[in-house]
């Protein structure tokens, strides 16, 4: 009986340990070149996810820098890729619903750099091609001209074989 109770306690503790959510990754943004201090930029330009599978989650923080001398509001959005990497195809239509953007409309102070967590959570039972790609587009929505700029981070996802 004691052994049974001991086994149940151990099993319970182990299961609770397995269920602990992993903390968001703390990523040190590499030091940008000095000439980018007064430019708006994002980093990284590309995130590669390997061994992904239905039910899995992958996440990575996207750094956004406001190079202006005044605050600026940004939009951070999911985007179908205009082109894809070799061997990759456009993400399935449902993938937009799998992507979580922690802060889709951040307002950054002048020269501020902020990390916005991007996560992709593929539901169990969902289907995807072996290699697929989506973009996270970042745009300074305080731009006023007719011709505006946008920066995008490529997410390249390779499914578990």
């Amino acid at each position: 009986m004691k052994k049974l109770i001991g086994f149940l306690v151990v099993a319970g503790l182990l299961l609770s340990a397995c269920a602990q959510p992993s903390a968001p990754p703390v990523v040190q943004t590499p030091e940008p070149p000095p000439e980018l201090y007064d430019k708006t930029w994002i980093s990284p330009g590309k995130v590669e996810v390997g061994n992904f599978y239905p039910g899995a989650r992958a996440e990575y923080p996207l750094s956004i820098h406001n190079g202006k001398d005044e605050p600026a509001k940004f939009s951070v959005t999911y985007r179908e890729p205009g082109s894809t990497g070799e061997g990759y195809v456009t993400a399935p239509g449902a993938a937009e619903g799998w992507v979580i953007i922690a802060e889709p409309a951040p307002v950054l102070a002048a020269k501020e750099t902020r990390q916005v967590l991007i996560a992709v959570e593929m539901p169990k039972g969902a289907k995807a091609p072996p290699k697929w790609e989506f973009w996270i587009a970042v745009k300074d929505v305080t731009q006023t001209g007719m011709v505006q700029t946008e920066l995008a981070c490529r997410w390249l996802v390779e499914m578990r074989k």
Partner: protein
Amino acid sequence: MRKVLGLVLLALALVLIPVGSAFAATSDTVAVTATPTFISISILPDTWNPAGGTAKINKNTTYYANPIGATTAPSPTVAVGECSFTVTNTSNVITDLTANFPSFAGGDAMTNIDTGYANNSATSFGASSYISGAAWPAGAVIMKAADSAAMKVDLAATTDLKFGIAIKTMSGDFTSGTAMTSTITVTAVDST
């Protein structure tokens, strides 16, 4: 009793080990890697009136973002001086550039026909982008409202590119008498 206590202590020790390390070697581990690149571009000028200056556009007319003339087509090989815009790749990596031209809002609200500058309809305009050194018109790239193909592939880091835009206005009459607006967006992505 000691065995039970031992098992509980063992379990507590396992709980304290970070799960990520405990399971790092299993086949279920998702690998996430990122290259430390910085993506950044700028464009000058950021304004454009297709008809030039403060002139109003006419219907069924092709306009060019060409400093030589608003209705002057580029040469068979597009010259730098035939492109109104300069995009600078201030990234530390090679980038691809795409340019989208959404439908206009307000006034007569022309919609993008999505088949390029040579086409229009009573209510739609067509648009294409062109870059210096490319063939005209074969090298022009259709500007769609969204999901256009790349205007430029593999623009080297810290490099300028001159580009222009051709637009054919709608063939129907403008009746509203009020201005319509659209915003062209040039998107940069890491092309490595």
